[in-house]
C-alpha cells in the first residue's frame, strides 16, 4: 500500500467515525434529556420510558456502529490496498 492510499484511508476512517457519531450523539443526548425529565415528572412510568429509550438508543447507535465498521475495514482490511 503506497503512502497516499495509507494517508487517505486513515483520514477517511477518522471522518467516518467522527461524522458518523455527530448525528447519533445529538439525538441520544436529546433523547436521554427527555427521558430523564419524563422520569422525574412521572416516576410511575419509569419502566415504559426506559424501555422506549432502550429501543431508540439501539436504533440510533447502529448508525455509529456503521461508521465504526467502515473505519475498521479501512484501517485493517483496506480494499484499495494494492
Amino acid at each position, binding site marked *: 500500500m503506497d503512502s497516499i492510499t495509507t494517508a487517505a484511508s486513515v483520514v477517511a476512517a477518522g471522518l467516518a467515525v467522527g461524522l458518523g457519531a455527530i448525528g447519533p450523539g445529538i439525538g441520544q443526548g436529546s433523547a436521554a434529556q427527555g427521558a430523564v425529565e419524563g422520569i422525574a415528572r412521572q416516576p410511575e412510568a419509569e419502566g415504559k420510558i426506559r424501555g422506549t429509550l432502550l429501543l431508540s438508543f439501539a436504533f440510533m447507535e447502529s448508525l455509529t456502529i456503521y461508521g465504526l465498521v467502515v473505519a475498521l475495514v479501512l484501517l485493517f*482490511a483496506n480494499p484499495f490496498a494494492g
Partner: protein
Amino acid sequence: MSASPLLQPDIDPSKGGSTALAKTPEASASPERNLNPVSVEFPLGSSEEEYVQLQQRLFLATLIVSAFAASFTAIFFDFSAAISLLIGAFAGVLYLRLLARSIGKLGRSSKGVSKIQLVVPVVLVLAALKLSELHFLPALLGFLLYKPSLMLQVLLESRIQAKSVSS
C-alpha cells in the same frame, strides 16, 4: 430544569449523608407538602419489572431470530458461515445487554449513557478481520440481527396499544 430549594439535600448522600430535606420555614409549616423523595410512594417495583420484562422479551426475540437465520444459512449457504452468524448474534445480544444496563443506570448512578457497549462490535469486527475462521459479512449481519427483533417489538407494542385504545 431548575431544582426547587426544597429538594436540596443538606448533606451529600454520596458521602453517606441522608437525603433529608433542609428545614425551611415553608416545609416545616406544611409537612404534607414535604417533597422528600424517600417518602413519595409510587409503584416503582412494577415499573422496573416492566423494564426487565421488556429486556427479556428483546433477548428472547433476538435469540429466536438468530436461530432461524443461522439454520437458514446452514441449509442454504455454508456451515462455517452459520457459525460466524451465530457468534455475531451472540455479540449482538451482549451489546444489547450492555446497552440496557447502561440505560438502566441512567439517572440513578450515572448522568449519561456509557459507551462501553461499543467495544463489542469493535472486538467482533477486529476478530472477523484477523481470524480466518470467522467470516466478516455473516458475523456483521449476525450482529445486526438485534434490529429485526427490535422492530418486531415496536410493531407488537404499537399494535397492542392501538387495540387497547380502540377497545
